[in-house]
């Protein structure tokens, strides 16, 4: 994976009347992990959504490899994966079908790869069940399997470890570690630090 950088310069974001992000600034290089912390409503989600270009910042810019991402948003999107609060899964499809469609829209996918990723996420035994029958933690695991499958350099994760048991949290840490080892970048909004967080950990505290 080629060396990649993410730079954020003086980001100001409003949600309605509220000035949520006031001049957020950071730079992240390949292999680095940024934890965004802050109380509820401090703007963690807004930051992630502004980073991936869903929200237009009132001021400031986001640069990927020194180029403003607005110049070619679609190319930037093909390099990133964003996981929101809720895993983007359809309740009426099985875990496996969900990944098949979700990931398949973005990249060609071999069935062996899919099985391996599900297995890795500990979903091997129940991946044919409809998502509506899965627990919140299980759904989260399916989403993590999808994340690994996307194979993109930039991960933007919103509370990746919620609903997960200790084992699952280790899985998150392991996935992040591998992503960093490959030279990828990870930005995660978290309540509390992940266990066994990477040595390349950096933090950003958002004021309430």
């Amino acid at each position, binding site marked *: *994976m*080629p060396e990649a950088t993410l730079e954020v310069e003086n980001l100001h974001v409003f949600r309605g009347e509220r000035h949520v992000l006031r001049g957020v600034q950071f730079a992240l290089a390949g292999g680095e992990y940024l934890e965004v912390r802050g109380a509820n409503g401090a703007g963690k989600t807004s930051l992630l959504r502004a980073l*991936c*270009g*869903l*929200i*237009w910042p009132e001021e400031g810019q986001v640069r990927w490899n020194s180029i403003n991402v607005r110049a070619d948003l*679609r*190319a*930037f*999107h*093909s*390099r*990133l994966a*964003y996981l*929101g609060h*809720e*895993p*983007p*899964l*359809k*309740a*009426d*499809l099985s875990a496996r*079908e969900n990944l098949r*469609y*979700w990931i*398949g*829209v*973005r*990249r*060609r996918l071999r069935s062996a*790869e899919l099985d*391996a*990723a599900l*297995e*890795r996420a*500990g979903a*091997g035994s129940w991946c044919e069940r409809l998502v509506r029958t899965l627990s919140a933690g299980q759904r989260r695991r399916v989403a993590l399997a999808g994340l*690994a*499958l*996307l*194979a*993109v*350099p930039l991960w933007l994760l919103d509370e990746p470890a919620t609903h997960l048991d200790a*084992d699952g949290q*280790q*899985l998150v*840490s*392991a*996935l992040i*570690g*591998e992503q960093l*080892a*490959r030279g990828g970048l990870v930005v995660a909004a978290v309540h509390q630090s992940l*266990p*066994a967080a*990477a*040595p390349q950990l950096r933090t950003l505290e958002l004021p309430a």
Partner: protein
Amino acid sequence: MNAGTSAAGTLPAAHAAGTAAPAAASAAAASALEAAWLALLRDVQLAFRRRAQLVQPLAFFALVTMLFPLAISPELTQLRAVAPGVLWVAELLASLLALEFLFRDDAHDGTLEQYALSGQSLTWLMFAKTAAHWLLTGVPLALMAPLAALSLGVPVTALPGILLAVIVGSVTLSLIGSIGAALTLGLKRSGALLSLLTVPLSLPVLIFGARATQLAINGAPLLAPLELLAALAVLAVTLAPLAASAAVRISLE
């Protein structure tokens, strides 16, 4: 970091490396068409998991056409005179009803967000979704239209023409509807507003469709209105997905 890997490693390490490591190199991006095809398949498969929702617009269509004989008169000559209007108004209302489901679930569960961030053309994906919607509601409604027409005393010879007109017209209705459904995504209660937005834009379809139906009933050649309906459909195919994708992006902001 080692601790993490071993704790989560529930399968052979080589396997895991195989999935994740070559990543960027081996992961060929899906083409726009592949992506659109998958988006369409997903919606079709989902719809068949929830068949009850598929039947609702059809039942509604039948219900509305049944109201007219009861409200006007059971006399077939009278019904035949109003049949084009009845059919198209029922068609318009039934397709409106079905629109509610077009994006709502996808907006709730984050699917739309993932589409918008997929690096694929959102316009194509919206087109695929609308195509799926048309296949699942527009086509069945169109197939029901000849039956409803029969019940209104329309001669059998008129049915092929009616079927053709409704099929072509429903393409435009679905596409216009996709714009309205996408625009009202950010709203808590959208029912009446959705109609207010889409019905005025659908008037040309109603006019040409009803005319084609009238001509079919009279046994006259109906090429002229059919051509106009087809022109509308072409225009809608080229422009509506653009507007719908813009609206979806706005709803995600």
